[in-house]
Each structure stands twice: as C-alpha cells, then as structure tokens.
C-alpha cells in the first residue's frame, strides 16, 4: 500500500527518529512504513494521519495510487 508518510514527514522538517518518538514506535518501524515494507495497524495508521492533521485516505492509498 502506497503512502505519503515520507513526503509529509520531510515537509514538516521531521527526522524519522522524531516522528517515531512522537508516535511511540521505533525509528525502524517508521522507515519500514515509508519504504512500504510494513503495513501499520489501523490504530497506528490513524495516529499517523492525526499527527499530520490529514485524513487516513490522504496518507494511505488503498488502490496503490500516489
């Protein structure tokens, strides 16, 4: 599933470690989500969307479109 996490994070001037600390996950998990090697749970996906003040559909693209 494609996502906008890296784009949103860099636009906000955040490092992976800072985003990970804010969401209480490891930096490796943020990296795995950004590189689409790991699909987050629904609670974490919502937490990411809320953190960036976006809807979940704006962060994650179920149909694979960017």
């Amino acid at each position, binding site marked *: 599933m494609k996502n906008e996490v890296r784009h949103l994070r860099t636009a906000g001037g955040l490092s992976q470690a800072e985003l990970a600390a804010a969401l209480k996950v*490891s930096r*490796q*998990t943020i990296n795995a989500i950004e590189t689409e090697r790991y699909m987050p*749970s629904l*609670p974490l996906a919502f*937490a990411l969307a809320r953190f960036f003040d976006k809807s979940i559909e704006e962060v994650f693209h179920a149909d694979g479109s960017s």
Partner: protein
Amino acid sequence: MQTAAPSPQPRRLVPLFVAVLAIPTFLAFWIGGNPRAGLIWGSLSVLFALILAVGGRSDTIRLLRGEDDDERTLELETRATMLTAVALIVALAVLFLVTAARGDNPLVYGLLLLLAEVTHLVALAVLNRRS
C-alpha cells in the same frame, strides 16, 4: 486511540535471564553425575547472554532483547516464533520416525508432538473465542 506499543523491556533483562539459565543447566548435569558437560552447556548459555548484552549495534540483537518493542517488532517476533515452532515440530516428527525405524521406543518424541498439537488446538480455541 492508542497504537499497539508493548512496554520495552529493560536492556539487561533478556541477557540476564539467559545467563541465569546456566545455573539450572549446570545443576541438572551435576546431579546427573556429569558436571563437566554441565560446565560446557552452562558456558554456552553465558556466551549467548554476553552476545545479547554487548551486541547493541545489531538490530537483530536489539529485537532479541525486546528493546525497541512496538507493533512491528511484535509481529516479527510472532512470525519468528511460528517458524521456530515449525522447525521444532519437523525435527520431532523426524526423530519420532527415525527412532521407531531403529526399533527403539519413540514415546518421548510422540508425547512432545502430542503436547505441540494439543497446545495448538487449545490456543486456536482460546484465541478464536477472544477475537
């Protein structure tokens, strides 16, 4: 809404647990009249504990220590445990068959296989009821 983030374990907890396992290991061999083998097996436990304790830069070691636990590491741990169980069950089945083919009693391996299957069934039933 909270993300599924288990509490990280203290850094030394897992290495300490593995190191402490050396004591009952040595005692078991000592009681069995073979303290030399107990020292060897106990030393292996301590060696593994040391690797866990000092291997801080390796992501895999950090995963083993449960240091950066979150939902992804929990999923990795679950999958790794599943693979471990499959490897053990295959080994038990092979040992059961080889022992039987040699004309020896494979009861121990059969009981362990039975334990694995019963555990699997009970776990499925409990998890199915809870989810």
